[in-house]
């Protein structure tokens, strides 16, 4: 409550990163997305809309770039890594899809710049956004290299859920008002519920939530199982296995691979943001 404890917390979190993580982390929620399995079908994105009370803004506002999509599927036509300097007449290797949701960076660039500390790092490794603390300076979004933060430019709730659509809203999540920044939370409400369930059968403290206790909305809806989610501190969790297998580690700004079949990489990790979302390179027969 005092000034000290806040400053002290911050210093811990900061120090934490260089030492490869805040040393009292209970969990380190992380993700791995296999781009070779992602078909860009967009089910995850809609699942996110359903789970997290995302506002539907309508054509006019969307055209202005005021849409809200915590999880967006990006589609690119070129494949720089395929060394294709020659321009193909047709898109013979298909399109390149990548789902982008908040990367929950351990050295998040959005956290230090928020004037009111509305965004910070939680003890379970999440990059939190506290809606009711946010004053809407929008600095965090400016400073996010991935541009994964979305701002409530209007009171979207006023016309996004005409009666009775609002009955679908998830009561575990606040509906955001105008002037507030929001972003992917790794379905924190599900994480909390899983924690509560763990507490019910007397699992507490670090590592309380076991692998498979919860699925995020996007992971749940993914038919090709392209999305792994879990605790990176738990060495046996599916997700940390994937990270290990593909030789990606936290707290680095570049990964040195033993050989090219290790497909893991993190987007823009050269900026030393230390994201908790890892991607597996898309594979193509050429």
């Amino acid at each position, binding site marked *: 409550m005092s000034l000290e404890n806040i400053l002290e917390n911050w210093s811990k979190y900061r120090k934490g990163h260089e030492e490869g993580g805040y040393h009292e982390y209970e969990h380190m929620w992380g993700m791995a997305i296999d781009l070779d399995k992602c078909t860009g079908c967009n089910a995850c994105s809609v699942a996110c809309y*359903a789970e997290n009370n995302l506002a539907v803004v309508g054509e006019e506002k969307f055209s202005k770039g005021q849409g809200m999509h915590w999880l967006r599927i990006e589609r690119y036509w070129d494949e720089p890594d395929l060394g294709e300097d020659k321009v193909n007449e047709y898109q013979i290797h*298909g399109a390149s899809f990548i789902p982008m949701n908040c990367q929950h960076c351990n050295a998040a660039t959005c956290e230090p710049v928020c004037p009111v500390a509305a965004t910070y790092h939680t003890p379970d490794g999440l990059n939190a956004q506290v809606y009711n603390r946010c004053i809407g300076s929008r600095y965090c979004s400016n400073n996010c290299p991935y541009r994964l933060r979305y701002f409530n430019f209007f009171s979207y709730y006023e016309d996004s859920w005409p009666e009775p659509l609002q009955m679908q809203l998830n009561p575990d999540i606040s509906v955001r008002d105008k002037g507030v920044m929001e972003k992917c939370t790794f379905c924190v409400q599900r994480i909390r519920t899983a924690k509560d369930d763990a507490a019910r059968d007397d699992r507490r403290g670090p590592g309380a939530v076991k692998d498979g206790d919860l699925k995020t909305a996007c992971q749940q809806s993914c038919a090709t199982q392209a999305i792994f989610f879990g605790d990176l501190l738990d060495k046996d969790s599916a997700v940390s296995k994937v990270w290990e297998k593909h030789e990606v580690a936290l707290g680095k700004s570049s990964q040195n691979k033993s050989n090219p079949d290790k497909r893991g990489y993190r987007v823009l990790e050269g900026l030393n943001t230390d994201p908790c979302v890892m991607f597996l390179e898309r594979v193509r027969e050429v």
Partner: protein
Amino acid sequence: MSTYKVKRRDFLKITGLTGASAALAACDMPTTVTLEEGEEEVVSYLMPEEYVIPGIGVWYASTCQQCDAGCGIIGRVREGRVLKLEGNPVSPINKGALCQIGQAALQVHYNPDRLKQPKLRQEGKLIDVTWDDAFAALKSSIGPDSGLDGSRIAWLTGTVSGHQRVLMDAVSEAVGGASHYAHETLNDTVVDKVNADVYGSANVQYKIADAQSILSFGADFLSTWGSPVHNSVQYGQFRDAPRGVLIQAEPKMTVTGGSADLWLPVRPGTEGTLAMTIAAELVASHGADATKLPKAMADQLGQYSLDSSEAQTGVAASLVKQAANFLATRAPSLVIAGGTAAAHEHGYEAVTAAAMLNVLLGNVGKTIIPVADFPYPALAPKKGDTAQLAAFAKKAKAGDISVALIAGTNPAYTAPDQLDMAAALSAVKVKVAFTEFLDETSSMADIVLPLHSDMESWGTHVASYQVADPMISLQQPLMEPLYAETRSLGDTLLDVLKLYNAEQYGPFADYYAYLRNVVSAVPAVAKEGASDEAYWQAGLQQGMLKVTAPKPFPAAIATAANDDASDALVKSADTMGFVLPVYEKNKDYPLSLIPAASSRLGDGRFANLPWLQEAPDAITKIVWNSWVEMHPATALYYGFKQGDFVEVASAEGSVKAQIYLHKGINKDAVAVPMGQGHTEYGRYATGRGVNPLKMLATTSDVQTGELALCATRVTVVSTGRNEELVKMGGSESQVGRKLVGTITADQLRRV
């Protein structure tokens, strides 16, 4: 997530009362924030079940009704409201996954434009009436004392299965031989016929996961074709090491094409030629055994060379060679055909040619398994197509239909202008619409009966695509009806039947009672010794009733097809004197129109769901609108730019939309997505974008008579206007920054 397995379903009935108020009180609208005491009401139950705890979700199993793939779903119910749908992990179809359309089923249920009141047409206008009045009207038109010749009554529905179909047939029979027409714009009539002719069964299982190489002709099996979620689940395993290779041959890039290793931009209508070329290449360079093919075809192989095909299909010879190489070297392979490949005048031949590749590669019985029909034909899906709609239109215009019972289809929107549905429907004296929304068709109806949403009604379903042992999917209500004046289709059908056959149907209070009773009809063998009650409860928990089939089930035909399919094959090949079309240019209408099946809006029935409207199209990333896809080279030739408003005109009609340029489309084709351009479908769909189906020529597949969706030729004219497209995202290129990393497969193998 605390998932409670539910024993009984009564709890909703009891707490439902508080459901609505609970919903209003519990919804987290910022404006409902108040710290004044006594401003808000609290939920208090009357007599809840033990497992109901305010603030904790209870999950119920049901079946997704958005399409006929029959995915199992579980719905999270809290304070009497269903909040979230997810895939049912125990369902063999979708294994816990759910597509975007399935997710959006909630918005069908909670849609602000849902019909709350029945309507009757009086002095040309639809007037709100009570259900009883509406039903009375229905009774007077098809009831026993309507004195109507039953054959003048017709059902016009979408694909229906399960006991809804049973009851519909019962009604048809009761009224005295009413006819039943089922219409679906996106259908597999052609493919089914080919499967029946080539493999000996219309029902075929594609073992995508087992294949090492897949060649798909126009079948967007990951998002719009067959059982998309099931296919996607299999595709996930298909990509696991040893990694399978996917080759997609289609004129316009679909979601599946987007994920393909090798995408072949085949010219619309020449898929058959491409298939034959690959067959020839397999025989020539990879020592495939041509004798496996029916003679009629084997003889033709000589005509197909890589070069001639390049001229015909527009696919570079090198790519075709590569494709053939993959198929030959990565066994077992799998060739799928459908969608745009089948939607041509000679679609049947094209699909057959593709099927022959399976025979040539010896995939039948390995990766492609013909299975028997559903053991209970009465429940089996009555699959819709446009041929039946045409038949209906013909009969209606002839004045032979005086009562049309319309459910789950919207022909006034989906039918090409050439079919002149307006005239056909207006020729029908009484049009009864069983519907949840006022769409183009139901707004023409005389009696509009508002239905429960799928979240409110009981039902049983049989998936159009059999993925495993046959089963009946159970659909159960996830919450109390929102509106007092709506009924479920099943209940209404029962009420009609009671008019005719009181002693048989009288005992059933409602559709639930009817279904509950049906269980005892299931043969004991299927119940594996469980009591009726236990069997039913298990069914409710899992969302499906296992009905073990007469053994041996799939095996029977599979082996047959394996050993010597020849007789079947020869039959098919010879009966049609196998001819493949030659692509000829058309001066006035140089481009082929592809009315692209939308992975978001389907054939237009999902256009009223805001989530799907705002979900970007997978390939173009455009939202809320229609567009015209075109190859940059073509655009350059005609002098169009990205964002130009153009008029796409066929001989039958035209649409205006903005151009989106990308290299994922054949140069001789333009694609306009289906789904938009509604004139009457609620606030989210009405007056938005354009509907390409209207301008289609009524060319149909020669063999099956099914409408050939992609056979229309068009010309594109500029309107001089240019605006920025309403799409998500800025740059279409990664400008050299590593966002989507890509490595080559040989790098992957080099360890």
